[in-house]
């Protein structure tokens, strides 16, 4: 029961503040002492954290099985790529536009399917992810460049400073993650966040209490897709090219695993999950050929030993009962 004691210890306010600054200090100082390679790895942790946070809204908060989240990531990335390469719009300015386009597409496609439940929604989102990927490959109107994708995306510039090195991108992605994480924490505690959790726990009871289930589910989908759109923009800017290979079903599965590994509905958990999913193959690079083999086993083992995820969200009731020393 050491874990419980550890958690109770971590619930003390001074401890929490100290922990926060420790993590914050680590993240800020990391690119100054780590090698470029590991800074790049840090960038990918941030990128997947952003994707995980988006899916966490849909899957973690509302409990909608979405196994096609890579579709919205792809839409964000291709929006950036096409608008930048064809129309010369600055890449960083496309950050909010990519989010909006992804959100708009999410609203369009999820409106007719949002009433589906559980596994049926799951298969439809899988189909959605595949449709988007196949459309990108098939190059409608010569817009998406087919299997080769779109190349030559301009580097983003912030107030005249061109974002180019791994360190620049590291700070860009983690700044976006920080803003989104804080916003999502606030949202969790709001009326909307509580209604989402109510839907997840018991949809019918929520509806009978006057919660607008449909509107709130749509909102979650749109918000989650918007975050994926942001990630798409940053990804496109970093890679300077986009191609359909990056947005496979496997990526959607990884995001799904990030949310469940971290703990459904837990913002810090999602970031931990992202770190795990990105770092695991890196740490196992010496046995490169077998690393995904172990990764598969690790997924199953984690679910066996910590079914609630690595950093499960504390429930409000739990806080009321056992929150010590405050």
């Amino acid at each position: 029961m050491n874990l419980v004691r550890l958690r109770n210890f971590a619930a003390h306010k001074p401890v929490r503040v100290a922990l926060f600054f420790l993590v914050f200090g680590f993240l800020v100082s990391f690119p100054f002492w780590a090698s470029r390679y590991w800074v790049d790895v840090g960038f990918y942790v941030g990128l997947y954290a952003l994707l995980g946070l988006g899916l966490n809204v849909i899957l973690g908060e509302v409990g909608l099985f979405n196994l096609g989240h890579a579709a919205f990531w792809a839409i964000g990335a291709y929006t950036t790529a096409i608008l930048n390469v064809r129309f010369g719009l600055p890449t960083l300015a496309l950050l909010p536009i990519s989010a909006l386009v992804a959100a708009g597409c999410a609203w369009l496609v999820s409106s007719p399917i949002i009433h589906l439940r559980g596994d049926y929604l799951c298969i439809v989102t899988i189909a959605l992810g595949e449709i988007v990927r196949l459309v990108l490959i098939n190059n409608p109107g010569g817009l998406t460049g087919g299997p080769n994708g779109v190349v030559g995306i301009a580097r983003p510039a912030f107030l005249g400073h061109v974002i180019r090195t791994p360190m620049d991108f590291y700070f860009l992605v983690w700044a976006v993650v920080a803003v989104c994480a804080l916003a999502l924490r606030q949202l969790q505690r709001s009326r909307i966040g509580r209604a989402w959790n109510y839907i997840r726990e018991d949809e019918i009871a929520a509806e009978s209490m006057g919660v607008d289930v449909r509107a709130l589910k749509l909102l979650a989908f749109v918000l989650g897709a918007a975050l994926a759109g942001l990630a798409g923009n940053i990804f496109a800017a970093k890679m300077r090219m986009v191609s359909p290979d990056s947005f496979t079903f496997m990526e959607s599965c990884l995001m799904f695993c990030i949310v469940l590994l971290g703990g459904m509905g837990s913002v810090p958990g999602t970031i931990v999950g992202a770190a795990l999913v990105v770092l695991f193959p890196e740490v196992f690079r010496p046995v490169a050929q077998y690393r995904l083999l172990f990764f598969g086993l690790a997924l199953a083992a984690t679910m066996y030993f910590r079914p609630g995820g690595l950093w499960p969200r504390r429930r409000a009731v739990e806080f009321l009962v056992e929150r010590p020393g405050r």
Partner: protein
Amino acid sequence: MLTFVQQLLNGLTIGSFYAFVALGYSLIYAILKLINFAHGDLFGLGAYLGYTVFVYASGVVGRTLGLWGLLPMGFAAAALGTACAGLVIERVAYRPIYPIGRLPAVVSALGMAIFLSNFIMAVWGPRYLAYQESFIPTGFWQIGEFKIRVLQVLILVSSLVLLGVLYFVVERTTFGAAVRAVALDRETAALMGIDFLKVIRFAFAVGPALGAIAGVFVGMYYRQINFTMGWVYGLKAFTATILGGIGNIPGAMVGGILLGLLEALTAGYISAAWKDVFVFAALMLLLIFRPTGLLGEKVAEKV
């Protein structure tokens, strides 16, 4: 007319593959309410096991018993090996986890899928392997300009026979009644003295075995196999399962055949590059208007 019939035949053949794999999904879903994401890769494993047996046995067995002695051996080995793999996965990765909840079980299933496809890659290598001429029935019948391959007939007949056997076992035998009871309500069935672990083991042995047979057939039909084939066919077969109505044996068959026909006809008449888009769009449309699939029964919402 000729191309239409030819496309129809192709569609039926591809549809049989999907139906085979879909049966496994459906059986396991009916009993555990779990999408067994590893099922597609079990299908891939079957293709590789069959390949290995054919390669090593084609010398001795091929010479003494001929092709028709070799084939049953390959199929039996693939089916048995994959059934064992299915049982091990159930024991190791699902049984400890599914009492905890459905989402952890989904992650565990995804983990097993990743594990299996990489296991195949580690053992057999990442490159395409070719099923050789020597262990494929290559004969065909010519009727006018119309060509029927022996292999196609073999695939169609065996899918019908195996479906019939499975349907008979589940619908007409005492054990089948136990399977249906567990599918309806596991706890009540257990209280009635039904050994539900036995039923679960049945599903995890028969489903992957059918998948393995399909895997060997796919290898013979397309002449090449790859470690990623499990994802592709798994996804299509799962689509077929949903099309027909999940947890329903004839439904899986109908869904598979329909999907195959849809694919062959769109590939033949509209566009080969867009065929998968049509398939998935059809699935979405169907689910919007008929959320339980074509043959799925209306299930009362549990409150």
